[in-house]
């Protein structure tokens, strides 16, 4: 029948096929999509490459890791995931703002993680308050990647010119946190700086030049709420008017430029604020610091120049009497189209350690997400992080709600109206509320 050679060849062929099939089954492709500003935020994706071998060994599989990272605009980045999900080509893991849970969870593009989070002890150590911004419809939909604070940066250089002592300057964050030095004090200081010619009119205080999460803390600072107890969208008209009065008043008093919205981030805003010699107070984010050190004041000494000339503090207390900030955690979410969500979660768990998250926190000046991380030597000894970590005790967050974009866009319209003088505070509130009601209909309650 068959020669020995023939049998041996068939045996080898069958064995090869089986080996190939088994090998193919063990090779699992995981695609991870990150948005990051290089180089300081590269660890958002690169950390996965660091743990790939470890996870492969733990699971006994071969992982083919595809890391896709760029710094695309948020709108394009989010649309890309929506379209990819519908096309069945979504990455296994998407890193995005936690507020996207409000749109992507009801759309079915991401999976709830409640049942699997408990399987990974790494997640037990996450700062409990961070989970609040990862919920929707009673379930958890993402794993925090980082945290941050959005502080007021103050120019020590200009405060010295204004006659502040070193003690006054260094104690400012503590006085703000205690509610002793309020937003009204900040505006008065800025006004004095303008009047004394230390800064030009309009350069007493700058906020961000485009729509974004920061603006919400002015509304929160006046007691405003975005969600009611049932999780429905609300708008508090009194808080809204008070917010617009604050912003419009700052323009009228010459503290804030009427055209600050629209300034180019990279061409004007960052290079101006980072020099510390033009703008007295600037509302930004902790991650701005390494960006400035690398890209705008490296020739002056980078970090050292910034420590010498710029400080950071909470947003001083407004009507509520409490200093606040806002954190906008980025979140690893697992696509519902992922064929290997367990492997994806294993990878996320592997990088949710003090060692790995510290790399991102230290390089990009984002705040830690793990309790152990806060106690780690690298984190605790970092001068920058230790000067800002307390801000997480005062933080607020965006809501996770499908109607949040309509709410926030209408709110921003009011800000534009009052700052450009196209409406007074009451008129701006009317514009914002009318816009919310037109687009959200019964989905918004005006209080």
């Amino acid at each position, binding site marked *: 029948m068959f020669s020995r050679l023939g049998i041996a060849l068939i045996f080898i062929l069958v064995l090869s096929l089986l080996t190939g099939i088994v090998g193919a089954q063990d090779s699992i492709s995981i695609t991870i999509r990150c948005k990051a500003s290089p180089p300081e935020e590269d660890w958002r994706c690169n950390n996965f490459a660091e743990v790939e071998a470890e996870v492969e060994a733990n699971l006994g599989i071969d992982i083919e890791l595809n890391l896709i990272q760029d710094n695309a605009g948020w*709108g394009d980045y989010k649309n890309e995931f929506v379209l990819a999900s519908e096309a069945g080509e979504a990455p296994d893991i998407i890193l995005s703002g936690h507020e996207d849970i409000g*749109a992507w969870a009801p*759309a079915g*593009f991401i999976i709830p993680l409640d049942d699997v989070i408990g399987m990974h002890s790494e997640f037990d150590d996450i700062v409990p308050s961070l989970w609040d911004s990862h919920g929707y419809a009673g379930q958890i939909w993402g794993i925090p990647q980082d945290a941050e604070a959005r502080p007021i940066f103050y120019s020590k250089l200009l405060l010295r010119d204004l006659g502040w002592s070193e003690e006054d300057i260094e104690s400012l964050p503590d006085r703000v946190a205690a509610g002793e030095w309020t937003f009204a004090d900040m505006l008065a200081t800025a006004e004095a700086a303008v009047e004394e010619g230390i800064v030009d009119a309009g350069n007493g205080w700058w906020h961000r030049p485009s*729509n974004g999460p920061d603006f919400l803390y002015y509304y929160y600072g006046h007691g405003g709420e975005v969600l009611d107890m049932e999780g429905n969208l609300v708008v508090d008209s009194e808080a809204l008017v008070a917010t617009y009065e604050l912003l419009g008043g700052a323009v009228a008093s010459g503290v804030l430029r009427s055209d600050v919205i629209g300034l180019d981030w990279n061409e004007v805003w960052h290079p101006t604020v980072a020099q510390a010699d033009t703008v007295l107070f600037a509302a930004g984010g902790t991650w701005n610091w390494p960006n400035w050190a690398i890209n705008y004041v490296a020739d002056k000494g980078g970090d050292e120049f910034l420590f010498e000339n710029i400080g950071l503090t909470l947003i001083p207390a407004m009507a509520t009497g409490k200093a606040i900030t806002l954190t906008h955690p980025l979140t690893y979410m697992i696509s519902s189209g992922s064929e290997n969500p367990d492997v994806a979660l294993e990878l996320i768990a592997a990088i949710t350690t003090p060692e790995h998250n510290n790399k991102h926190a230290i390089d990009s000046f984002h705040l830690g997400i793990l309790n152990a991380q806060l106690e780690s030597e690298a984190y605790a000894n970092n001068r920058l992080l230790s000067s800002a970590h307390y801000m997480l005790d005062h933080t607020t967050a965006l809501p996770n709600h499908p109607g*949040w974009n309509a709410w926030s866009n209408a709110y921003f319209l009011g800000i534009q*109206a009052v*700052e*450009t003088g196209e409406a007074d505070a009451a008129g701006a509130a009317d514009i914002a509320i009318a816009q919310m009601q*037109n687009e959200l209909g019964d989905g918004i309650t005006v209080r």
Partner: protein
Amino acid sequence: MSEQAKTGDTTVPRSRGGSNALKSYLGAYGFMAPAGILVIVFFLIPVAIVLYLSLTNLASSNFTSNLAIMEFIGLKNYQTLLNDQFARKIFFNTIFYVLVTLSIFNVSLALLVSLLTTHIDRSAGFVFRALWILPRITSPVVYILIWKRMIAEAPFGIINQFNEALGQPTYNYISTNPWVFVVVVNGFIGVSFGMIIFTSAIESIPRDLLNASLVDGSSKLQRIRYVIMPLIRWPLLFVVTYQTLSLLTSFVEIQLLTDGGPGLYRTEVWSLTAYHRALSNYFGNAQWGYGSAFAVLLVMIGVVLAVIYMRVFRFDELIAEPRVEAL
């Protein structure tokens, strides 16, 4: 030869004529078919889909590509659009932008450049026209970055550095004069299209005709007025029509330069609103259905304008058989 033909019956030529007419029709439709298919696939079908999307509440939070399971909400998006307190402002912004850019740059300046460059040394004219084409062939992002660097406030902007050097105040031009720059930036791109069409039309006028007018004693200005302008009437009307529709739908440069601002939609145009609503939102959850309603109205405006232009400018005469051929 048929019996009828032998008898000289008049139906013979009619029969042959019918066959010829059929062939003629088939030939015409055959030649038009590729273009027709393109129009159907890339215009009519997308318009139908966008029209349907505009009748749904499609958003990122309920996104699907399955038309059958989208939630149909009738005309609610159109109702929301009409109730939008800024829709009227955005509509008139669009009219202003199209009219000003079209009249100053896309037609007038394009014509001026064409006339000037065809009245100077031929190679010099070519160089000048090549320079005017640069904005068109430059990537919009690079082009706008150049403009932003030119008009940024001191000490970053080039113009403001001159202002400072001359002891003049400096300006945030985007804030103080947004429309000037929106129109100029788009106009510089728009000039090239008309310039090419007009130049080729002027160059195709027989030289003896142009020389004859000079021999008859006309000045160069009179030659332009009484000889060249009447002979380039049709290219002129074509550029007006085409560029109107083109400007109606263009928004990339505006998005990159002002993003519709500053303030309350000061330079927002209709097509940019459709884009903002349907495709780009800082906080995500783009409103595909609502944005489609803006897009549908834009298509309707474009179609109405196209029909009006065709009637007013009598395009049927433009494409009619020359009378000398019809004799």
